């Protein structure tokens, strides 16, 4: 374990910019933070619990041109700039890992792969749980991540820098890091305890798969969806929602684009015969909860929810995924 006297995150942003990286880092906008491509380390502000949007667009942009067409097709080379994301929280690093499993396992998605291969991940351990956070319920830690290249913990006057990969080592070696003292180690431990005790929300995942299988046909899902407006903000902000649409823009010549889509929209599954496998909004909302905690568990062996709580914070009608899961009725 190493320590850096000063603000490693900010200094690493400056260093990476110097080295020609495209750097995504948190920027304060009005009363919230968002990951943006920055040009100067002074734009960055690390005083946040989490960003309003997840940083999934770094590897999976909201809109992306796949190819051009006219007489015939022209392949758009996948973007291959050296890129870094600095200040990403452990839940979002898990989100990145889960996205990797979707886009890189089985058939490789070349557009995603090009961006992912060139991405350096500098994580930022949490010093405080947000109002909607529940990452500890889905098996994560707010201050650890083995999937980052580097993970940084703020100790106030200095930062603990943990190197998790060769890629991370190559960058960290350019900084003057010293070995952590016993005091640094115990301060970090204390901080971790403080963080863990700051969680106010939890999800009961005990026998969840069985509970969900049993409750699938319950009217509970109609009650849960009563006020849902199918706006899709939950899927838009979710770090693990990956559904996309593909469409052509331009009649004779143009571009084929992929863009984020949402299982909450009726058009997502509407077939031209007018058949829709999830016609009702309660079926669509139920699909989201089952996808996060059941379907993807069957497919990939893990929950596709990282406990970031963004969908809770943003839902215009107050649907709370933690509450919904906890209140699944039994014996139906």
């Amino acid at each position, binding site marked *: 374990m190493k320590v850096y006297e000063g603000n490693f995150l900010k200094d690493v942003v400056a260093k990476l910019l110097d080295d020609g990286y495209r750097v995504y880092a948190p920027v304060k906008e009005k009363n919230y933070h968002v990951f943006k491509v920055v040009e100067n380390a002074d734009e960055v502000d690390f005083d946040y619990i989490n960003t309003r949007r997840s940083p999934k667009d770094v590897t999976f942009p909201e809109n992306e041109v*796949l*190819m051009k*067409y006219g007489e*015939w*097709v022209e*392949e758009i080379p996948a973007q291959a700039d050296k890129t870094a994301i600095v200040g990403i929280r452990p839940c979002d690093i898990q989100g990145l890992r889960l996205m990797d499993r*979707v*886009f890189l396992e*089985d*058939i490789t*998605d*070349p*557009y995603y792969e090009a961006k992912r291969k060139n991405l350096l991940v500098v994580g930022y351990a949490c010093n405080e749980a947000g109002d909607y956070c529940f990452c500890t319920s889905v098996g994560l830690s707010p201050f650890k991540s083995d999937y980052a290249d580097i993970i940084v913990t703020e100790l106030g006057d200095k930062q603990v820098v943990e190197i998790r990969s060769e890629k991370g080592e190559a960058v960290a070696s350019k900084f003057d890091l010293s070995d952590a003292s016993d005091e640094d180690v115990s301060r970090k431990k204390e901080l971790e305890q403080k963080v863990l005790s700051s969680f106010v929300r939890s999800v009961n995942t005990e026998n969840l798969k069985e509970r969900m*299988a049993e409750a*699938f*046909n319950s009217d509970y899902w109609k009650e849960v969806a009563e006020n849902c407006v199918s706006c899709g903000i939950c899927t838009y902000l979710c770090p693990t929602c*990956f*559904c*996309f*649409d*593909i*469409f*052509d823009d*331009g*009649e*004779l*010549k*143009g571009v*084929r684009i*992929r863009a984020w*889509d949402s*299982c909450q929209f009726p058009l*997502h*599954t*509407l*077939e*031209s*015969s007018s*058949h829709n*496998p999830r016609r009702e909004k309660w079926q669509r909302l139920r699909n989201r909860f*089952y*996808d996060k905690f*059941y*379907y*993807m568990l*069957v*497919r990939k062996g893990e929950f596709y929810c990282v406990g970031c709580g963004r969908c809770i914070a943003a839902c215009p009608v107050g649907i709370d995924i933690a509450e919904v899961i906890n209140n699944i009725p039994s014996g139906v």
Partner: protein
Amino acid sequence: MSSVLDEPMKNPYLPYKAEIVEIRDEVKGVRPIKTFKIRLIERERFDYQSGQGCLVSVFGRGESWFTIANSPTRPDLEFSVLKTGKVTTKLHEMEVGDVVGIRGPLGRGFPLEEWKGMNIITIGGGIGQTPLRSIYQYVIDNEKDYGDLTIVYGARTSKDLCYKDELFQLKEQGYNVELSIDNPEPDWPYFVGFVPDNLKRIKPDPKDTIAITCGPPIMIKITLGVLKDLGFKENQIYTTLERRMKCGIGKCGKCKLESVYVCRDGPVFRYDELSRLLEEA
């Protein structure tokens, strides 16, 4: 088996260039169906299995998934297209010589190797006959490997039957082809009624038999009940599913049925694979 997706350097979103070499009218009227014979331009044909599909690109309109309508033992690729959306409407306006894009073969086909030695019965309705046609052509072309072949097929009216000439010809040649239409028509010599009712009348013996059904969801549902009543086990019954599809390679989530991607894990499913799902397929 070589497939486009087994070529590691290939971008799986990029289509092959192909040309329409023949167009046949199957059904006319307000819901017309045409069969397009398509030939790849820049490469030889690719191998595929009956039941697999392709995404056909009409640039400016998008891509649509079609199950391959002919057997891999026959030349070129055939797709039967019901005019229903923006891609299919444009396809219906296209002519011989026009260029389209093809991505495929995609998904999992029928395990025809596994079925060797078995009797085969296909039960189709309307445009759902498409994947079944690929099967019966394959079985006919490899006749010595299979037992008895029965083709059960129906549509609303005699005008809505696809592959009519081919089916009448097969019947003349002595193949067991059982046709039906939903309502009586003058001069219709065959069964009148729904496809599952025709199946009840035919009473196929489940012994050493594989049943494959494809058609409108309601027809499939009732057919499954009839097959079970006849003594067919779930692992003797296959179907193909249709969902809205975009990427075709198990990423975009459009066709996702619970943990299953219809485009990648299907579209062919054995019935016991579907009956253990929570959601109705």
